[in-house]
């Protein structure tokens, strides 16, 4: 099994007619994802390589039965695009776009929670998610993920997610689903959401979690692991050597006022019983050992 995404998920791409949307939309389709529609109000009635374009997500849902959306719209349009998708009736909205203002993110998070509690928002500023062998929605380089499980992966960073998948594949360890939650301050889906879903997924036997400096999401995840996760967790935290006060690329990745340090996160996770690797490859080794013991 997998979480959030499988071979039956039908995805509409908002921004399929743009260069990035088209490139990754077609890559996702080649992988096996059901790419059923795209949207562009100015190009309704046309198509992209055989995929029909509708004016709105609601139209796409009505005609194709799409139940998920993937957003490749520029940052200024993300707020509108996500609301359109939620109102259009999809259950999963994956926002790849980076550079979305914090005030738009916190608005979307609370708006969806209040008016569309059954809609899952993933991102913004995330690589998407992949259930290897079933479907890939977003920009993950799919060939680096080995299908078949038993590891669920959740990560705050895009490229580190690929690194984690790659380390697992090198060690012949497969993945049920890999979820990139994104590095922004207000992600739609949190570590805890993913940990809970992996805990409930019978095919997932162990969980790999990739975090980074800034905020307290890893500490909150550690608390959740201690009381709610029975499956083994391997963690890696990036930014051990990051100087305080300097934003390390991601809007969320900053050590400020002595808070959000890698050390605090590592010790919280270790105390919660997680196995913490000092590098992505060490985390991969730890996971390979655990999987070998199953």
């Amino acid at each position, binding site marked *: 099994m997998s979480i959030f995404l499988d071979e039956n998920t039908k995805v509409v791409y908002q921004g399929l007619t743009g260069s*990035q949307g088209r490139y*990754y939309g077609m890559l996702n389709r080649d992988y096996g994802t059901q790419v059923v529609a795209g949207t562009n109000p100015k190009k309704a009635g046309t198509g992209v390589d055989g995929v029909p374009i509708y004016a709105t997500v609601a139209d796409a849902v009505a005609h194709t039965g799409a139940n998920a959306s993937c957003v490749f719209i520029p*940052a*200024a349009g993300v707020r509108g695009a996500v609301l359109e998708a939620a109102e259009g009736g999809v259950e999963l909205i994956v926002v790849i776009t*980076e550079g*979305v*203002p*914090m*005030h738009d993110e*916190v*608005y979307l*998070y*609370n*708006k969806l929670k*209040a008016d569309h509690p059954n809609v899952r928002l993933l991102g913004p500023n995330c*690589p998407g998610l992949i259930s290897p062998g079933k479907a890939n929605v977003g*920009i*993950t*380089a799919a060939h*680096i993920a080995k299908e078949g499980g038993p590891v669920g992966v959740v*990560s*705050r*960073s*895009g*490229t*580190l*997610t*690929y*690194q984690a998948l*790659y380390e697992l594949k090198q060690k012949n360890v497969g993945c049920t689903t890999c979820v990139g939650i994104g*590095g922004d*301050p*207000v992600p739609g889906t949190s570590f805890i959401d993913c940990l809970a879903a992996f805990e409930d997924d019978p095919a997932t036997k162990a969980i790999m979690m*990739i975090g*980074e*400096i800034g*905020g*307290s*999401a890893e500490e*909150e995840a550690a608390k959740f692991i201690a009381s709610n996760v029975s499956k083994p967790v391997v963690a*890696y935290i*990036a*930014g*051990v*050597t*990051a*100087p305080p006060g*300097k*934003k*390390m*690329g*991601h*809007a*969320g*990745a900053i050590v400020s*006022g002595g808070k959000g340090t890698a050390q605090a996160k590592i010790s919280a996770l270790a105390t919660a019983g997680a196995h913490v690797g*000092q*590098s*992505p*490859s060490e985390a991969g080794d730890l996971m390979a050992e655990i999987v070998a013991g199953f």
Partner: protein
Amino acid sequence: MDLLEYQGKQFFATYDLPVSDGEAATSVDGAVAAAERLGTPVMIKAQVHTGGRGKAGGVKFAADIDAVRAHADDILGLNIKGHIVKHLWIEKASDIAEEYYASFTLDRSAKTHLGMLSASGGIEIETVAEQNPDAIAKIWVNPIDGLTENQCRQWVLAAKLNPTVTEQVVELLLKLYRAYTEGDASLVEINPLIVTPAGKIHVLDAKVTLDDNAGFRQNLAPYDATQPRDEREAAAHEKGLEYVGLEGSVGVIANGAGLAMSTVDVVNQVGGRSANFLDIGGGADADVMAGALEVINNDPEVRSIFINIFGGITRGDEVANGIIEAMNRVDIKAPIVIRLDGTNAVVGWALLEPHLSDRLQSEPTMLEAAQLAVELAGSTPT
């Protein structure tokens, strides 16, 4: 991006918050002229991106023009925690009866906005939080509902300020919340928020952080121009690269913030030290890669360069072309170690193959590449 105090006050003024009349100056003569226009007494305040200005001698009261001249001369060029003072803010001096604290910021855990208000202003809020947490009245504001007047009044009452200023503070906080949300701020802080002997509330200091991502709907250019950046950081910023200068000798280029951070960590782990954090971002093309190499190449401390690319939205062929282009365009002083995986990595390798030498080496994994880069940094003469 962090605003200087005077920029923060000008930002607040556009939302009708009560700030003092003042002028920015970059020279002693400019400060004197400003003080003459404003009328003494005035405060002369160093404008730097760090706290503790008062203790460092960066904030002075000037009763007359002679004092303005003397203080401006002292403060300009002052080194405050590594920040050299280039800007002064001259403002009308205020008499203070009481000092409060007010702020809005994002509570990342609660995923709503957090307002903090305290009658114990004038000192760092972290200190108040530690020593007397009950002195801070907090309010969590859901962005869907916004801050209502009623809510705001309850909050002000909970902070136990002087009751005579309750209505003024309510009005001010509603404006401050508007500045925070409409201005795309991630932090607005007034410390101190003062009450004058005449019973008027007034913004005496301003700390504002605006969201870099809001550039498409806010004019951030004037603030961007005064950001503190060392030479390397300025050059990288000009090329649109995410760069943070560090102290080591291994230049790091990676794609994605997480991988870049992790690369810096792994270099450290195998016994080296990174000269920088540099994220070329998602979807970087050959030109971006060439620009990144130029920035690293201009850092005199760099002894080896570690390029760590895991292609997702970034494509291996573009990365390879960028490296080849940069090597043709400029004389890269330090040897390069590259690790390339992910999208189009095979095509990238085919492009790089004919160029491999002791100046451009490859390793299959991140760890091995880090080891080689650190080894090369150690053996490259300074």
